[in-house]
């Protein structure tokens, strides 16, 4: 039996197809104008990679920002639940998940089954989110993929004073003008974001092991920065950015099998 999970985020959409033995195929695409478009596009890719058709999928769970607007899913789950579930599947010893996505940053405490024990979001300020990195990368005309490697070259420690994404941009530009090394700046940037994320996680008292998920985890520099900000060890997962989609797929599997978890979900369904 094959099932699918589809995570439509603000920046990227991801789809994962799994069967009893694990991941069959996955796909990722930049988010389009509407969640429906993004979802369809990325889902078609995934189906393609798996060489199957939508009709072969016995259950599909949607999650992420746009989850309420995807027509082809059988049910929806919150990102929190999906990231928790996915993380524990990818790293069974994980008890705290730090997910840094585009617009937000979450710290999630999970039990061995991947069920969420406690979670917290970042507050009403976008500092400490992936968007922060996007904005700056754009300003410095650097590709997101390169941020990590560049920062790892840094030799000198500098700090950013501005928490505001938009003003940090100015601050960084002025740093460039003062001839600061790009690598040092980007490292400072990573630490700024990582510090916010770490503070968030610590405020719900982290338990080991800690794993980092979300697109930002692809950024090796951020990974190191978060590690040092937490002052503890941090687990790596193979597919951080599609972690949410993996979780969704796992829940789809439950649903298809009709296991209690989903029973509960149906009852718990809220009046929209």
């Amino acid at each position, binding site marked *: 039996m094959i099932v699918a999970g589809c995570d439509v985020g603000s920046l990227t959409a991801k789809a994962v197809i799994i069967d009893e033995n694990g991941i069959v195929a996955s796909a990722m695409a930049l988010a389009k104008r509407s969640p429906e478009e993004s979802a369809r596009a990325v889902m078609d890719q995934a189906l393609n990679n798996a060489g199957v058709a939508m009709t072969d999928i016995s259950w599909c769970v949607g999650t992420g*920002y746009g989850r309420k607007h995807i027509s082809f899913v059988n049910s929806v789950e919150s990102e929190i639940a999906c990231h928790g579930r996915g993380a524990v599947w990818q790293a069974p010893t994980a008890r705290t998940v730090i997910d840094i996505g585009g617009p937000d940053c979450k710290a999630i405490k999970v039990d061995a089954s991947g069920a969420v024990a406690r979670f917290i979001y970042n507050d009403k300020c976008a500092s400490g989110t992936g968007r922060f990195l996007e904005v700056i990368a754009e300003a410095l*005309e650097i590709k997101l993929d390169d941020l990590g490697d560049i920062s790892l070259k840094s030799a000198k420690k500098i700090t950013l004073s501005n928490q505001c994404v938009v003003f940090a941009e100015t601050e960084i530009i002025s740093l460039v003008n003062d001839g600061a090394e790009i690598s040092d700046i980007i490292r400072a940037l990573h630490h700024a974001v990582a510090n916010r994320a770490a503070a968030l996680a610590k405020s719900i008292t982290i338990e080991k092991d800690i794993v980092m998920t979300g697109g930002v985890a692809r950024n090796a520099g951020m990974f190191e920065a978060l590690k040092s900000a937490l002052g503890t060890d941090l687990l790596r997962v193979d597919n951080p950015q599609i972690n949410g989609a993996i979780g969704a797929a796992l829940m789809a599997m439950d649903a298809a099998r009709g296991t209690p978890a989903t029973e509960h979900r149906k009852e718990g369904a809220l009046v929209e």
Partner: protein
Amino acid sequence: MMVAGCDVGSLTSKAVIMKDGKMVESVIIKSKARPGDSADAAMGQALSKTGLSMQDIGFCVGTGYGRDRISFVQEAVTEIACHGKGAQWLVPSARTVIDIGGQDCKAMRIDEQGNMIKFTANDKCASGTGRFLEVMAKVLHVELGDLGALSALSKNAITLASACTVWAQADVIQYLNSGVPVADIAAGINSAMASRMSIIVNNIGFERDVVMTGGVAKNAGVVSALEKLLGLRIKRVTRADPQLAGAIGAALIAMEKAQGGKS
């Protein structure tokens, strides 16, 4: 004599060449990473358009965010003073000037010579800056220039429920997803912007006539939303592009300096 003003903003850089109080040439370019480069590029273009060289410029004043990093200017003055002068040249009856640039939003009162009497500036957080509008325009997939016209078509403007540029962006995405007409969102964005501005304008206690300079002045939506909030008509700038006000003011100050009006 030829004088010039160069306004290196956080988002755009402008150069203006003037002769006997008349504008000879003007250029607006997107700012580069380094203010020095932006200034050279903007001024370079302005000069080449007029077929002049830097030697022909009697005096040049720099202003804007990068004012201290321009190699070729004789003096640097803040954009606040320059926008005052510039606005007064654009609209002689102007007594209150609202300048919204990329990184902040300022309001000032000026006398009949365009000298700044009192000012206030807001930059607590990037909401209420031109940058905010750029981000939003991008999310809406519309041209910055169309944001204003678009909002005019709105029947039922949304209220934007987040001060934060980045979060508001998320709100806007949600509205888009739930099929709210783009015009209504645009209108919501513009009035959010206007309400933040009206606070600082009322804070200095405006006197007529009120004019708007800076790039955002080109956004008709913001202007009319602000007019509603302030309950007056904002004088439209026609003599030149309001985004040039800072550079023009710089050039005018350059003129004063050149004529030995040392201060």
